[in-house]
């Protein structure tokens, strides 16, 4: 019925089920890749063994290594690998396909300037149009990057993991975090500036560096000084007057910026002790806002200056203080970042701490150079796999498996981002699964917009998409008409084999002047395969009755309430599909989804 618009709940069972199904299918694909790689591993190892036996040798010792991985790099790589895995697990939440745009993407850009919102809207559209594909892709991309970071400790694969982390991190930072909110109002280190995922990008870039970059304290100094400058800048921003951070909740004034944020965080769904802890901090800030901010500013400035000095003796206590400050902010202000709502990552404090700790380790724990061992000249018939150690082979294949996981996410995401048409799953989620039948369609004889008689039998030989519209409807009918128009465009050459037919569903406003006015309004007057049929009330009532349509005149200025149904009738005059044409929330995504669904279904009927 018009006016009863259906809005998709974030946990719509159709979409959630499709999400789980997509994950399962992709998991099977990944399983297949794993099996293939295992076979490859087995074949290579067997060949190695046979060749060594044939040559009468004991299996070759692994070639001399490069020495242990620098501690700082290992901390960074493993830390961010674990974070990506945690993010992938958070992406598994059922509400993610439909909830992410409205709960995360749009709010993150809401206080940013128009051009940022415009950029973020591109991401919102891709996700909204393809919720299942995008959500499943995000899971595999993040799982794959995390696994790649953890499984490939050295060499090209490891650097590739860093690059993948940086690339996907940039995508998330731009479209998911609206550039970390740095262009929006209220940027603050306490609230996550410059965006958690930018730190994933930084870490990815560091892991992607050649390993020799970690062989001197220079890299550690660079990381610490950059972090130090950032902390000093954040201290200045935090101290800037008029931003509400110096005020708690003085009588007669509103809550300060930090107090308001903490109160908001305390209301999210979380364990009671944590909520009580956050509330307690909120009360402290409300009563001593000035002092709290003074401490934060002083600590940020002191840590920043210490990092800029980049001397191990000065940095060490600063690192301890910075870690403590990060933990305090993570718990008391950011509330762990992922509790309640649709959290997608643990926010900025954990990655921030990982970056400066690894900077400190790069400064103080420089790897000891390992003497270069010159390999013994190999015999002429020694092939490349004879030189591959079993451990290396295992790691390479594991890295390839992780890369395959990344690709399982990246390919559908790339396909979704270039497809302008929404996924038909949205239409099914709104309207339910259509009924597939094969029964003769009830005949009718009415008149078109020009007053010419038209009967169903006149349309024999062409597929008919039939619906019922009120020409003076203010909401759903114009949307349905646009969805039919969109389906016609999607059909391309096949549109000549289809007639889109609407029958008037208003007992009072049914004259051809009205169907013509509706066509002009919807830009349908030039659509050659569009018919808007009407007739005497008795004829209309007869058609409504045979197609199960009700049209009730409601009192007191309400729109006519009528059933929203569509029928797909094949070229023999048989009904092949009955579906609801309820247009949902009328968003471009749902309209595009319905058009796509209708076009697919018509193609199926045409070519059946």
């Amino acid at each position, binding site marked *: 019925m*018009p*006016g009863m*618009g259906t809005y998709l709940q974030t946990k719509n069972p159709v979409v959630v089920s499709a999400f789980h199904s997509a994950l399962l299918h992709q998991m099977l694909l990944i399983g297949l890749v794993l099996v293939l790689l295992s076979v490859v591993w087995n074949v290579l190892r067997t060949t190695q063994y046979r060749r060594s036996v044939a040559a009468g040798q004991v299996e070759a010792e692994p070639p001399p290594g490069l020495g242990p991985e620098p501690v700082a790099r290992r901390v960074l790589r493993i830390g961010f690998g674990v974070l990506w895995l945690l993010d992938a697990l958070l992406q598994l939440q059922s509400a993610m396909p439909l909830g992410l745009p409205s709960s*995360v993407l749009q709010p*993150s850009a*809401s*206080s940013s300037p128009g051009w940022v919102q415009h950029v973020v809207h591109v991401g919102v559209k891709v996700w909204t149009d393809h919720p299942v594909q995008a959500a499943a892709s995000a899971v595999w991309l993040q799982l794959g990057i995390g696994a790649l970071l953890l499984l490939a400790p050295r060499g090209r694969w490891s650097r590739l993991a860093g690059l993948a982390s940086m690339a996907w991190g940039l995508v998330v930072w731009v479209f998911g975090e609206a550039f970390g*909110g*740095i*262009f*929006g*109002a*209220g*940027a*603050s280190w306490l*609230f996550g500036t*410059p*965006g*958690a*995922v930018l730190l994933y990008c930084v870490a990815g870039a560091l892991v992607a560096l050649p390993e020799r970059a970690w062989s001197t304290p220079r890299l550690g100094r660079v990381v610490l000084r950059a972090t130090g400058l950032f902390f000093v800048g954040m201290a200045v*921003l935090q101290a*800037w007057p008029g*931003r*509400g*951070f110096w005020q708690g909740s003085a009588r007669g004034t509103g809550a300060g*910026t*930090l107090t*308001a*944020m903490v109160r908001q965080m305390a209301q999210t769904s979380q364990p009671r002790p944590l909520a009580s802890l956050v509330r307690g901090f909120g009360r402290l800030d409300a009563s001593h806002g000035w002092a709290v901010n003074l401490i934060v500013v002083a600590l940020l400035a002191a840590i920043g200056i210490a990092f800029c000095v980049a001397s191990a003796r000065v940095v060490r206590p600063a690192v301890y203080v910075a870690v403590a400050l990060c933990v305090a902010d993570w718990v008391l202000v*950011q*509330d762990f*970042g*992922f509790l309640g709502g649709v*959290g*997608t990552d643990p*926010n900025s404090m954990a990655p921030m701490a990982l970056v400066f700790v690894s900077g400190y380790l790069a400064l103080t724990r420089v790897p000891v150079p390992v003497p270069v061992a010159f390999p013994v000249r190999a015999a002429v018939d020694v092939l490349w796999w004879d030189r591959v150690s079993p451990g290396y082979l295992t790691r390479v294949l594991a890295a390839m498996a992780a890369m395959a996981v990344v690709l399982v996410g990246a390919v559908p995401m790339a396909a979704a981002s270039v497809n302008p048409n929404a996924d038909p799953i949205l239409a099914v989620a709104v309207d339910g699964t259509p009924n597939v039948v094969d029964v003769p369609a009830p005949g009718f004889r009415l008149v078109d917009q020009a007053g010419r008689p038209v009967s169903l039998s006149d349309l024999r030989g062409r597929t008919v998409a039939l619906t019922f519209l009120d020409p*003076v*409807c*203010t*909401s759903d009918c*114009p949307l349905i008409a646009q969805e039919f128009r969109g389906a016609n465009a999607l059909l391309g050459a096949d549109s000549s084999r289809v007639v889109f037919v609407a029958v008037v569903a*208003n007992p*009072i*406003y*049914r*004259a051809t*002047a*009205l169907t013509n*006015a509706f066509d*002009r*309004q919807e830009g349908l007057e030039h659509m050659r395969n569009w018919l808007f049929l009407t007739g005497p009330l008795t004829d209309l009532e007869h058609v409504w009755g045979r197609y199960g349509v009700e049209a009730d*005149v*409601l*009192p*007191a*200025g*309400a*729109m*006519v*309430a009528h059933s929203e149904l569509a029928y797909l009738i094949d070229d023999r005059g048989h009904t092949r599909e009955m579906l609801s044409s309820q247009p949902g929330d009328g968003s471009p995504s749902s309209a595009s989804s319905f058009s796509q669904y209708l076009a697919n279904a018509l193609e199926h009927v045409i070519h059946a």
Partner: protein
Amino acid sequence: MRTVTARGPSLVATALVLAVVCGLAACSSPTPAAAPSPAGSPLSVAVPLDATLATGSGALSLVPMGRLNDRDNTFWQLFFRSPGATRWTLVTPPGVADNGGLVVSSGPPANPGRGVTALVGFEPSQDLVFSPLASSVDHGATWAPGVLPGALAAVPDALASSSDGWLVALERAGGGEVLESSGNPSTWSKLVGRQAIASSAGGRGCGAGDLTAVALEGARAVQVGTSCAAAGVVGIFVTSGRAWRLVGPRLSGPLATSPTKVLRLVDLDGHTGGLVAVRRRSLLGLVGLTSTVGGAWSHSAFLPLGTGSRIASTGVEPGGGFVVLVSRADRSLALDAETGPGAGWQALADPPPGTATVSVGPGNQVDALVVATTRLTDWRLDASAGTWSKISTVTVPIQFGSSS
């Protein structure tokens, strides 16, 4: 990531501000105060669709009801009361969502029972961009559908009808377009547009702006109201062959220094009544106009609208004068009625809170129609005591959520 927001400048904005503050500090100058509007600028005064029409055959009242702060759930209702009846009857035409607003025109008072007795236009809302119509020959007991090809102008006098079924309508397109129909409310042809009137001799003289009202005087004379930029000139135009002639009066004295805007234009038993917005010195107010035999005009005294006040509703008395309900800046209501065509204004007792419109019936019987969601209460004024007493209540079966 979870959304974290706070007020204050952005990181980038802060840096930019920091960079430019010093430079600006040395050469800054005080911000000039907002300049007053130029003398010839159009008057920004609107008249709502809430209206009453009183004729010899009864009274029609148009009021918005439902959830008035939610446009999709505000449904406009039309009530009719025949002479002598104590209750209002709900006669809202069915079949179209009317949450965009309604415009009503009654049949000509000189010919009760002939032609249409009520012509109603639906303002477009949501995705509907043209205006369905409904006409009745029995005061809303039954309705016949019609349609206007474009969007009906959102003014109380966007429709008019004559005793022989001739109809005119004012559409929004291009600052106003007048359409006419010879009787079938689904077949319309363009009569004149804003551009044609503005480029006529009279239009150039008055500096005609948007078209604001239409009326039918007598059998076949279409009148069009406009805003006028020229001081003291009232923009009322009539057809003269194929040309359009300015017939509106030129105001004099302190009223001759301001632009004008025709807010209402109605046929009053063979002559025309108009309600015009004008300034006297800096004070915005209203003047009632009445045409007299021979084409001359008389005008009422000036009714000032207080600062921050707005017109809440207008009505036409059976005798031809206007009644104006004003919502003051403090949201209290004031009621003023013309004491007669071309005469002064009488301040009536403040109507009850929630009054949507006021109807003046035969014998100067004044009714205030108070709306509370789905309930309409009719309060009547005891003029001698200056008090209001409740007469009747009508509950309207509004279908919330049906048209959104």
